């Protein structure tokens, strides 16, 4: 026989006192009906938000200059996605780490994205009867990497001061075929054809929205719209728990988003990995409360239970 000491935060004296009538089915049924009524009421009064998503078409029509300034970074490999690292590409030195460990590097490039080909070149090659575009792409692709970089840098410089008044207004510069490529990509986006090319990859059926979302997220327009919806923040993960309009959103994520505001996570290059590590640790603690001395004593020491079982203690 084991002589374990009775620990009030672990053990109980099982109840052999009086019992009362109880109807399990009735309780669950009544609760279901109450929730159904509450839900129907909330849904009728408050509804739910459904603001349309930004598309490449709506972005390039609303802010064509931002679109072009983003598109050139996709071509020259300086966009957020192009330099992201795993899981999109193998850019070195950018993976987030916890100490010496980088989980995203260990997981590898699971969703390979080549922004120049996937966002710019390949969609343009799907355009029918576009000899000028084909020639510009052929000229670009046949040039030496150094020449390509020179054209791209020249275009990026003039794109910074570009305007749009029905047509993209660019200062002259030594950007070679890149000017044609960018103008045609803008036209393709404004027509809506780029959305289809990135989503479906030339197939009839598609449900993968990865490429257009990454392209759109690389621009400034998405963030500006999110700010207008009061969804943004610094860092933007704070807005992750919200949705458009005055709705509760995912309020249960408050602790997760909270850590993004706390140093050193708020200004760390590995902030996401650090926040996740903290949340995994806290989750483990919550799950293992029954096994952790001190933590499992909190209910007994705070005596909130006396409020819950006040009738029991009053009647002694």
């Amino acid at each position: 026989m084991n002589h374990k000491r009775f620990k009030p935060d672990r053990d109980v004296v099982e109840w052999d006192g009086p019992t009362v009538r109880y109807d399990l089915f009735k309780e669950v049924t009544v609760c279901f009906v109450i929730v159904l009524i509450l839900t129907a009421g909330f849904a009728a009064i408050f509804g739910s938000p459904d603001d349309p998503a930004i598309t490449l078409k709506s972005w390039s029509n609303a802010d064509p200059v931002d679109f072009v300034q983003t598109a050139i970074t996709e071509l020259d490999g300086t966009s957020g996605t192009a330099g992201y690292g795993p899981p999109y590409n193998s850019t070195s030195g950018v993976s987030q780490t916890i100490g010496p460990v980088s989980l995203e590097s260990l997981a590898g490039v699971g969703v390979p994205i080549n922004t120049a080909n996937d966002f710019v070149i390949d969609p343009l090659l799907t355009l029918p009867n576009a000899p000028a575009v084909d020639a510009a792409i052929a000229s670009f692709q046949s040039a030496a990497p150094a020449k390509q970089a020179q054209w791209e840098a020249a275009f990026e410089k003039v794109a910074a001061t570009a305007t749009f008044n029905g047509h993209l207004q660019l200062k002259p510069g030594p950007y070679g075929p890149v000017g044609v490529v960018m103008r045609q990509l803008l036209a393709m986006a404004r027509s809506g054809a780029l959305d289809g090319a990135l989503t479906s990859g030339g197939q009839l059926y598609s449900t993968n929205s990865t490429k257009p979302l990454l392209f759109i997220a690389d621009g400034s327009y998405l963030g500006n719209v999110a700010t207008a919806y009061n969804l943004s923040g610094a860092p933007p993960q704070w807005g992750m728990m919200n949705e458009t309009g005055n709705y509760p959103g995912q309020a249960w994520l408050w602790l997760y988003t909270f850590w993004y505001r706390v140093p050193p996570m708020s200004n760390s290059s590995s902030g996401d990995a650090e926040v996740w590590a903290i949340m995994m640790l806290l989750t483990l603690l919550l799950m293992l409360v029954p096994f952790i001395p001190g933590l499992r004593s909190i209910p007994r020491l705070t005596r909130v239970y006396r409020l819950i079982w006040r009738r029991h203690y009053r009647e002694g």
Partner: protein
Amino acid sequence: MTSTPPTTTRTEAVLATERPTWTGRFRSRAERSFPPEKLLPDRQPAYVSSWIYVFGALTLGAFGVVLLSGAVLAVEGPAWWHVSRVGLYVNSLHLWSTELFFFFMVIHLWGKFFMAAWRGRRRATWITGVLAFLMSIATAFTGYLSQQNFSSEWISTSAKDGINATGAGAFWNVLDFGQMLLWHVLLLPLVVGAVIAFHVLLVRRRGVVPPFAAASTVVSEPYETALLPSAAPAGPAHDDFGPEVPHNEEAP
């Protein structure tokens, strides 16, 4: 002339020499763990008299409404609620039942925390409850990603960095609408439903945790002598996870 023994006796003799089947073992264990009066009780201890106890059933009720409204959305397809007023209302039902589900669940969780509801070999009940909470968060998250509107666009492009930092982004792509939708309508609800079912079965098996004993009964003596004779359990108890152990031989 010798008489043939009764058939029943012969059958019993054969059965006695046979190894029990998996089915037989499962049935025996289920019968031991869940006698009808424990599985579907119509009486409960007198100390169960607080509104806090209702929040578990309210959570179950909300889960039912979430499943029903989600099923209607699934029947009509993901594009329906964007173009139909009825569809938008059903989507609103799905949204608000989810909000209520989490509201009730969190109150239930903190209520159980302050009852120290893991006491008396109810640790697995607590753990499965926390697991249900976590899996529900994942399910709701994929739902927000599957809305095909600005909210899901913003949430997915913001959330990808956190998911990618864990390494999960290499195979669980929050930007892939099709993948998130299937996780939301099939895989995660199955997991949440199974965990909740297991959690409820554990509650039924172990019962509702009793109040903290009055100070006079909590003594610093070996556990077996600390139990009052009248309060000691009559037979062997079962640990949450299955193996039968004497009531006072709990692992530390």
